């Protein structure tokens, strides 16, 4: 009988009485979840933009940079946290080192891909108009790479919303903490409600980013 996760004692999917007295707990968890995600993607972007530009400019660096973060991605989160705790403590910093590291791989890759997709004739035209390398990067290449960068931000955001739950082992985790409580206590309500909130959060974030992309990059609407 595969798929029977829970034993068959009577526990409703949502215990409304319990839920009604625990709304602040869910709101606090949701807020923590959003904060952890925003920091991870924001800081990840700040690191990824220059790193992607460097990896694009100096081709020899591209594979080492992407491989380095690919390897980081394979470190089990519990091992990473256990190594970090003595230095960075049991808090946001430790959690974000993991989350930012995971976001950077996705974002850097998309920055590189976006920059590489800029057509050569556009670059030639920019050179012909007398753009210097930095001005060409900022005013021609990065704007043309923005659709790919935005796609990376969307993927990184949705992925991070899922990944935040792993920081539950160091006492954070946002909604992950409630999912964990549901599993530990064999109690459906926090498990179901926190999972639904996490899905809704990912959908809302993705739609909001898609919306801001449409506003910011009107020329890429067909994408």
């Amino acid at each position, binding site marked *: *009988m*595969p798929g*029977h*996760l*829970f*034993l068959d*004692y009577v526990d409703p999917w949502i*215990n409304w009485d*319990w839920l009604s007295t625990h709304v602040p707990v869910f709101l606090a968890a949701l807020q923590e979840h959003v*904060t*952890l995600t*925003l*920091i991870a*993607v*924001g*800081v990840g*972007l*700040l690191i990824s933009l220059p790193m992607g530009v460097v990896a694009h400019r100096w081709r020899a660096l591209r594979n080492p940079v992407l491989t380095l973060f690919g390897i980081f991605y394979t470190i089990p989160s*519990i091992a990473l*946290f*256990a190594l970090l*705790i*003595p*230095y960075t*403590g*049991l808090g*946001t*910093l430790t959690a974000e080192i993991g989350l930012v590291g995971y976001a950077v791989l996705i974002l850097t890759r998309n920055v590189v891909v976006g920059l590489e997709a800029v057509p050569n004739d556009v670059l030639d035209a920019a050179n012909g108009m007398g753009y210097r390398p930095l001005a060409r990067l900022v*005013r021609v290449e990065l*704007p043309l790479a*923005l659709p790919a960068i935005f796609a990376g931000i969307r993927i990184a955001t949705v992925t991070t919303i899922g990944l935040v739950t792993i920081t*539950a*082992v*160091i*006492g954070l*985790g946002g909604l992950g*903490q409630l999912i*964990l*409580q549901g*599993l*530990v*206590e*064999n*109690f459906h*309500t926090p498990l179901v409600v926190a999972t639904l909130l996490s899905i809704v959060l990912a959908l809302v974030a993705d739609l909001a980013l898609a919306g*801001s992309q449409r*506003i*910011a*990059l009107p020329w890429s609407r067909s994408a």
Partner: protein
Amino acid sequence: MNWKPRSALLAAVISLSLSAAACGSSPSTSSTTPKGTITVAGFKFSEGSVLAELYGQALQHDGYTVTFKLNLGSREVVGPAIKSSQVDLYIGYAATDLEFYNNSAGEASGDVTATTSKLNSHLQPLNLVALNPSSAVDQNAFAMTKANSTKYNATKLSDLAAIGGQLVLGAGPECPTRPFCQLGLQKTYGINFKSFKALDTDGPLTRAALKNNDIQVGLVFSSDADLSSLGLVTLQDDKHLENADNVVPIVRTPVATAEVKKVLNAVSAGLTTADLVNLNSQVELQHMDPDVVTKAYLQQHNYFG
């Protein structure tokens, strides 16, 4: 071509993320109280939160400002945290903690006093101290369904030696290397299981796997409130593999002042296994909050005078 609005938007997105970062990292602890702040860690199972709240609230009542770090992963997270002063105390279990700090040297025994004093000899160089152990005990226990217990005619762990090859053991992923789990079952009882399935430590996955007969033997804890209602029986530990895992506070030595010791020892002295089962069942079966049930317990037992 005018890029300014777009780059302005990008800048806005980035600065928004940054200001969120600044908000997220601002500490919210105020330490204006005379007795200072004590950070109490709790393991990520309900009893972990119950014990942390129990001892932590007693300290709070005594005038300390207590910060709770609950639902932390296993000792692999809490160990580094207390060694590096990220937390000041956690409520451990004498034998399990001894075997954690002596790297599974097998020094723990059924004797609580001897186990605690050995634990303290390992804690001292780390600037940690174990206080008086409570009589409340939470031991590893191995459970089978009643049906399988009858089918295999197994009521005690030594019954499994002959039939281990037909049985799958399920427990947390660390079980195969732990002396009080698969390693000990093999050494003390000579049980060689057909295979091991990494599930959770005493959680719903283990219970579901037992129920579905995916595993026949699962690790649970003696203070679990729900075993009989789930139709599970624990096998008698007839060769005393499991040491008395008495509840014991482990504190950073600089924090363990005479007053802190007095408060924590008073809680340990009053707590029994029956109390613990009762608190656990309120949290696990009735879904009451750990801080609420422990507060009621402390009030009923006159800790709040």
